[in-house]
């Protein structure tokens, strides 16, 4: 009765995919048998593209495998099953005076997903990726073995699994350190910048004094306005209540019609968003929820992009003095008239991840949403790919649904080595796509 193929979507709702679902609930249970088909763990489905999909294969939903197993209130070391969500961990940790070591822009992801994608956040320049804070985890392999992996034990598998896209086996539980806080609030500053040069200046000035930095950019602005945006930076407040967030109340009840999002409406939104901040610098004290997770308040916000879904395009390029690659990319996007509200720019720091396949490296990363307009959108991506590759950049699999194989293998020099650690029973739509096999 659990054998029927079901439609499964990732966050970008592209591509369409069908899988059989065999939920895992207990980290102590044996690995479900795919019955000859490839298997893949699936958390909360927030990856944008196909790295969390396994078309015509078996998905192992993990969110019910979510027990918290141990917490040391002196050191902040938490051990939990891999399906535990960052949302649940915040509910647990914040009232006790602890916070996530780093967090992406949604808390609706699992710990297993955070490791498999080696996620990063606004504090990358201070904390590095999530994988840096993982002390150890257990990996359940299809040969039935359970491997405790850490920097000292099974260290090869440890490195391959961090950023390993779930292909090295099932992460059953993990142990990682939380960060001490004295308040659930963040003291923030929002700074208007008029150009990319200004962005780089503010960013360099902020790294030492601010734990969290990120910028929103108006990717449709051209000419003298090119690269204008809002720089947001903040620190955990020194004093304040330790209140966790509340569950979201609003949800997008239906799919927006495709016509609702067009270059005119996005341009109007971007212009208003930029203009609503009046002074050059605005100070405020915000709860962590709107600061880190502005979109979590609206469940299913991905429906804004309609039935055809959307792409996210995220890359990192090394920083150069003229930022030529970034300028060219903004020019091309603005010229194409495609583009989005959500263009996020951030400087990555130099802290290296233990992961073999981790995405971030020192430089500047840009993440953009694009409504799926078919060939027109894919053609733009091919143009952008060439610029990113020429600049020595790299793409983020967690956001990707379309990069060609060469983009992946050229930009991840460890990919061939990584292959040797893949569990033979595991695969994903992403992996088959970039390796061009139909297995």
């Amino acid at each position, binding site marked *: 009765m659990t054998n029927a193929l079901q439609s499964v979507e990732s966050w970008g709702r592209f591509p369409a995919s069908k899988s059989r*679902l065999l*939920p895992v*609930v*207990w*980290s*102590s249970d044996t690995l479900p048998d795919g019955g000859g088909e490839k298997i893949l763990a699936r958390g909360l489905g927030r990856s944008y593209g196909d790295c969390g999909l396994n078309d015509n294969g078996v998905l192992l*939903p993990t969110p019910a495998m979510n027990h918290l*197993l141990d*917490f040391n209130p002196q050191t902040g070391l938490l051990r939990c099953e891999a399906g535990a969500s960052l949302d649940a961990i915040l509910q647990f940790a914040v009232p006790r005076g602890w916070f996530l070591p780093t967090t992406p822009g949604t808390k609706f992801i699992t710990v297993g997903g955070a490791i498999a994608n080696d996620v990063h956040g606004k504090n990358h320049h201070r904390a590095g990726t999530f994988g840096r804070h993982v002390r150890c985890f257990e990996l359940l392999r299809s040969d039935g073995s359970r491997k405790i992996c850490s920097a000292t034990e099974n260290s090869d598998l440890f490195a391959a699994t961090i950023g390993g896209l779930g292909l090295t086996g099932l992460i059953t539980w993990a142990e990682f350190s939380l960060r001490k806080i004295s308040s659930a609030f963040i003291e923030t500053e929002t700074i208007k910048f008029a150009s990319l040069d200004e962005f780089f200046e503010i960013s360099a000035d902020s790294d030492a004094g601010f734990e969290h930095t990120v910028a929103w950019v108006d990717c449709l602005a051209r000419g003298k306005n090119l690269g204008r945006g809002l720089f947001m930076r903040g620190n955990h407040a020194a004093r304040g209540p330790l209140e966790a967030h509340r569950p979201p109340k609003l949800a997008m009840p239906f799919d927006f019609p495709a016509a609702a999002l067009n270059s005119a409406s996005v341009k109007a939104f971007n212009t208003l968003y930029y203009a609503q901040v009046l002074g050059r610098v605005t100070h405020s004290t915000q709860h962590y929820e709107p600061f880190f997770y502005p979109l979590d308040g609206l469940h299913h916000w991905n429906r804004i992009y309609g039935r055809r879904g959307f792409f996210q395009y995220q890359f990192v390029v090394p920083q150069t003095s003229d930022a030529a690659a970034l300028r060219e990319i903004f020019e091309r996007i603005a010229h194409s008239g495609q583009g989005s509200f959500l263009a996020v720019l951030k400087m990555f720091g130099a802290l290296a991840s233990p992961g073999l396949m981790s995405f971030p490296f020192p430089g500047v990363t840009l993440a953009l949403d694009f409504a799926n307009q078919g060939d027109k959108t894919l053609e733009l991506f091919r143009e952008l790919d060439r610029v990113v590759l020429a600049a020595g950049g790299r793409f983020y699999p967690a956001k990707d649904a379309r990069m060609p194989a060469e983009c992946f293998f050229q930009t991840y020099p460890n990919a061939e080595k990584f292959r040797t650690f893949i569990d033979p029973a595991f695969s994903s739509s992403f992996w088959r796509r970039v390796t061009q096999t139909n297995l």
Partner: protein
Amino acid sequence: MKKVLIIGATSAIAQAIAARLAQQGAQLFLLGRSQSRLNLLAADLKTRHGASAATGVINFDDFSTHAAAIAQAAKALGGLDAAFLCHGSLGDQKACEKDFALTEAEFRTNLLGAISFLTHLANFFEAQKSGAIVAISSVAGDRGRQSNYIYGSTKAGLTAFLQGLRNRLHPHGVNVLTVKPGFVDTPMTAHLKKGLLMATPEKVAGDIVRAAEKGRCVLYTPWFWRWIMLIIRSIPETIFRKLKL
């Protein structure tokens, strides 16, 4: 409810009940099939709620062990205020239709096993002159439907048994709560489409613990199932037999 036995403690609803009771400071005895699963649940209750829960392993289908398990729980907790009966299985209707042995196994687990536990618990609480019994039945027991009448009839039997038991134990200060959940989002229902009617185990567990504390008789959870089932029960059989439910 301070000293509580949870039978079938690793089911999704039971876990949520355990979490809620632990949060309220109850002492728990968790009875389940697998020690390693019970250990994970106990670790979670300790980590999240600082609760120390004792555990016991049991083969539910070996009825001869039930009395000893209840005695073990009462001893470990130093008494017993309430017992939650949560074990059960949602068998494969189609497979059961073809094979009586599978149907028999469903009845053993869902009905006879439950009646065995309830018999021992009733006698324990009757002698004690206090206590609460909470048993998870199902809306499926309110009317037999072609899509799941095997499961439904095990639960219908359980519901009738609980009605009689409630009647018997009321003069002795013991309350019996029959819980009839609708669709709950658990691994048991992972193959079903998640519709608007689907409730979380946490929501259902909250309803159950509150109803038990108030000494209620029958709980539909979420609440709207009382009205859905009222309608379903009122359809005349001559019409009902033509429906595809």
